[in-house]
């Protein structure tokens, strides 16, 4: 498979990653090579094979619906880039 520069820019946007324009051709080449490797999967017919989502085929465990975590907001916000009055600050979203 061969990805164009535009494909890479679209994927980068979906992934919320800013790429330097100068690096885009290299990403296009590398990603194309990786998808060529991945497409070896298509040599095998997998009709009727049950997908394996989990290595042990286990069921999700349930627990009683009780509070198990205490409020540690102050501690967690100590490592935040920008907070005010217990809120995480980001650039203004609504004009």
């Amino acid at each position, binding site marked *: 498979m061969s990805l164009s520069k535009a494909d890479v820019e679209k994927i980068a946007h979906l*992934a919320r990653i*800013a790429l330097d324009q100068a690096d885009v051709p290299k990403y296009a080449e590398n990603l194309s090579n990786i998808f060529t490797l991945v497409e070896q999967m298509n040599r095998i017919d997998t009709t009727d094979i049950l997908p394996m989502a989990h290595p042990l085929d286990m069921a999700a465990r349930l627990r009683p619906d009780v509070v198990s975590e205490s409020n540690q907001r102050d501690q967690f916000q100590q490592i935040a880039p920008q907070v005010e009055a217990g809120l995480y600050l980001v650039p203004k979203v609504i004009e």
Partner: protein
Amino acid sequence: MHNKTLAELSAALTQGTLSSVALTQHFLDRIQRYDSQLNSLISVTAERALNQAASADQRRQAGQAGPLTGIPLLHKDIFCTQGVKTSCGSKMLDNFIAPYSATVVEKLDAAGMVMLGKTNMDEFAMGSSSETSYYGPVRNPWDTAAVPGGSSGGSAAAVAARLAPVATGTDTGGSIRQPAALCGITGIKPTYGRVSRYGMIAFASSLDQGGPMARTAEDAALMLGAMAGFDPRDSTSIDAPVPDYSATLNDSLDGLRIGLPKEYFGEGLAPEMAALLDAAIKTLEQQGAQIKEISLPNTHLAVPAYYVVAPAECSSNLSRLDGVRYGYRCAHPKDLMDLYQRSRGEGFGAEVKRRIMIGTYALSAGYYDAYYLKAQQLRRLIADDFKAAFTEVDVIAGPTAPTAAFNLGEKVDDPVTMYLSDIYTIAVNLAGVPGLSMPVGFLGGRPVGMQLIGNHFAEARLLNVAHRYQQVTAWHSQAPAAFT
């Protein structure tokens, strides 16, 4: 002192001929003296270590010590350590002081182990050479022109260079076993779910598993016993008792059925590599093991399937790193989109960006069936190969990596070539079974590892086979000359 194994150091501490403070200071001195040649550490926590060591000595005097009490170790910088930087090898988390500790860290703390520091690694554990770290590449103590393997390359290099008796690692596609092989040490990736993933920064959640990296199987057994066990905070943790891995180390190998997959010994394997593996297998045969050729017919599909499953899960896991709540934030974001895009664009390195983008594409609208679903179907075929094999044999043996350590810079610009370094280890993660690597010789002065694979929960058997092998061979006790 540093050439002693964990088991030997534990005995010396018990006899009272050695204190944990003295032992800890000795390894801290070695780190200071030698690590500039290796770059195996991101953080050294000397003060914390000496405090822990003093507590361990007091605990011993109070008669409350276990076999691990007072033994120094290093944690891979993927395990959260409360109050200590946990970077995962990334600029994104260069300022991340973990607000809590991983279960593995808590358990080893509770056993009285002493953390010397945090080891360098491929960024977010994505790599096979420890060259993608924001903190620069790790070097192999056997030859500093060579890579130590990855992603747990800092842990492997440090243990091989005797900067610590043991270290923790994590393995998503070979990241404990391949660096163990390339640095000449012993490492085991346990069964998926055996060791808690809580506080272990997630790369690919259906594949990630933590485990010990040590010089001997005996040491790995001691450490795995303390790391393993049910954890209600990890939704995929297995609620099953942890066996005493040390108790069965000396079990006889009489009648043990070892399978050699013909796909692992085919044309991709260099003859000199095959010769070392043959010699190791003969040694096991002399101890009573029966050798049988088997087939894992879908082996060739493991790398393609893995490079859908792992990037897909990584793209989801790493979406939490958005520059809002913790981690790197770009300067002067002009709006929210700019904040997300530049924080991630500047905070992640090239390999992490590649994998996030592969995963994003594979999971994007219209492509799910062609990539993710297809890969999950192949994963079933690969797991079924192992299931069938383990009806015929008890343990599977083969190479850990296709070659001994390659040189720094040799593969780092060619992702596909790098990915093929893990051709023998990846299927094990997809199937969720345990795998161990142990040293079986050298090629051109660089160590070579043999991989032992077992059925789910067969860690004790793998450690037993490796221990019996190490009782009659000396590859595991070789030390790199520059670090003796």
